[in-house]
């Protein structure tokens, strides 16, 4: 790994030095690819900047415009919150139900697990997004299957403000597999004695679920909730490929709007400000979740 000359060898081999040397890639990477870009973008967010001409300092103008004069900005925040707050809980509930069903175990369980998990491995890909777009097209397979059952078969799923966002939510819920895996391994770690004791006390299935299973799962649910909320707020590919924010901005995700501002309207300074707002929103949501933690998450320490 590290070539060492004899004179340097001893100094390099101190524990503290070795630690720094080994961590060096991350130190450089973190500064160079995260801190520096965030810093630069903070500066640009106070500028009128369109990539082509040099930045011109304008103070808080971008932020003021964002919060007071940009309807699409507010619209995209609303859409993003709606998407995250609907799709993430739905996905977790699905994941938990399926995990409860599969944890019982049978010879076929690994196979079922694989089938349910597959969508979450490939769900974020462009291939699946273009498939989704075709499935929900007016002449797509969803409408034709509905037609087979005698249901209305000409709904324009992607063309109506009321249904377009749901095609994206369904795509997100479809990928419940990784949460399911996490729940599965958490469920297996719940000591069987607890259930035996509950049986002795004559508890029924529902009581066991709400008194034992659910409380012991709350740390796992919490972890899932935090990570998926963050990802939910930042979904990009699906929206960019499938709906592009249409119709009438009803599916305009914050990330896609930021992209548009920067690369379609060439208001890069404005977009840099939006990236900072995005970071603050994600941070705030995470903080709120952590603040609620002690009210509902079971603490193994106590």
């Amino acid at each position, binding site marked *: 790994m590290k070539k060492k000359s004899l004179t340097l060898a001893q100094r390099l081999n101190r524990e503290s030095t070795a630690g720094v040397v*080994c961590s060096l890639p*991350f130190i450089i*990477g973190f500064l160079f690819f995260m801190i520096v870009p965030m810093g630069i973008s903070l500066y640009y967010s106070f500028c009128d900047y369109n990539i082509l001409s040099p930045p011109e300092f304008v103070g808080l103008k971008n932020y003021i415009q964002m919060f007071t004069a940009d309807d699409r900005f507010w619209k995209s925040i609303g859409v993003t919150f709606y998407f995250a707050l609907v799709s993430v809980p739905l996905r977790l509930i699905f994941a938990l139900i399926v995990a409860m069903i599969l944890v019982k175990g*049978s010879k076929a369980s690994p196979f*079922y697990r694989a089938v349910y998990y597959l969508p979450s491995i490939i769900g974020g890909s*462009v*291939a699946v997004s273009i498939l989704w777009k075709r*499935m929900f097209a007016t002449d797509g397979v969803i409408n034709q299957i509905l037609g087979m059952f005698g249901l209305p078969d000409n709904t324009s799923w992607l063309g109506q403000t009321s249904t377009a966002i749901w095609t994206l939510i369904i795509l997100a819920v479809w990928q419940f597999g990784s949460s399911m895996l996490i729940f599965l391994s958490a469920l297996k770690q719940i000591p069987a004695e607890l259930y035996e004791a509950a049986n002795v006390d004559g508890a029924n299935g529902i009581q066991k679920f709400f008194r034992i299973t659910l409380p012991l799962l709350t740390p796992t649910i919490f972890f899932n909730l935090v990570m998926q909320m963050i990802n939910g707020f930042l979904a990009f590919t699906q929206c960019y490929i499938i709906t592009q924010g249409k119709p009438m901005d009803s599916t305009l995700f914050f990330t896609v709007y930021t992209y548009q501002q920067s690369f379609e309207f060439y208001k890069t300074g404005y977009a840099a400000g939006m990236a900072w707002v995005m970071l603050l929103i994600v941070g705030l949501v995470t903080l709120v979740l952590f603040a609620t933690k002690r009210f509902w998450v079971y603490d193994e320490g106590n």
Partner: protein
Amino acid sequence: MRRKKIINKTIYHVLVTLFGLIMIYPLVWMFMSSFKDTNTIFTTATQLIPETFKFENYANGWKGFGGISFGTFFGNSLFISILATIGTVFSSAIVGYGLQRCKFKGSRILFVAMLLSMMLPAQVLMIPQYLWYQQLGWVGTYLPLIVPYCFAIQGFFVYLVMNFIGGIPKELDESAKIDGCTYYGIFARIIFPLLKPVLVTSFIFSFMWRWDDFLSALLYINDSARYPVSLALKLFADPGSTSDYGAMFAMASLSLLPIIVIFIFMQRYIVEGISTSGLKG
């Protein structure tokens, strides 16, 4: 009693299988449609199995766009994904070792920074990094898609490695130290070879994520000869593109193939990776 058990079991398996079929139906449908005559895909959408299997769509799709075949796109994707993945795996391994096994000033701060990098996703960094890479003159090259990953910027992988090293007895390090091994020697000769399972897991995840990565390719690659598959597929979905859905589904299916093959053969590692990293948040 026994009969009731069998009936219950049958109902269970039928329901679970049925639901599983619904889950993967879209994928099977796309795969099957890619063998249909491109004009009949939507007129026969409810008929899953094609009447005759045709490979024309694959031939048509493979031709690609503007004289650039999908072979080029696949090659580009492979190149980017492999390099970025190798960079991620090795840098994460050594950083994970440094943070887990060596005590030094600031290691706690670094640990927090690593958790932060886990929670700071690509979408937030999209504009900031673009501005920065533009100043570096990296826009239009593969550098933004590869170089950052060689610096362990995905905390997830460092975390996986740290977790794994935490389970290796420290006595191994100590005895090697007594035998005159340096900290770097311990990593290279003792720890690194033991890391194999977690390195395989990291390799799989990193490769799959890089392969699927669309956002950074969209931002940085503007010459279509250098497009990775994800970006090339988007050309099919562009409004105004000639809509050869057969070719589109054929190439989309093909683009999923590497991931599905990895998934089938490496499932054990994937399941373990998700379960362990998810549990100890």
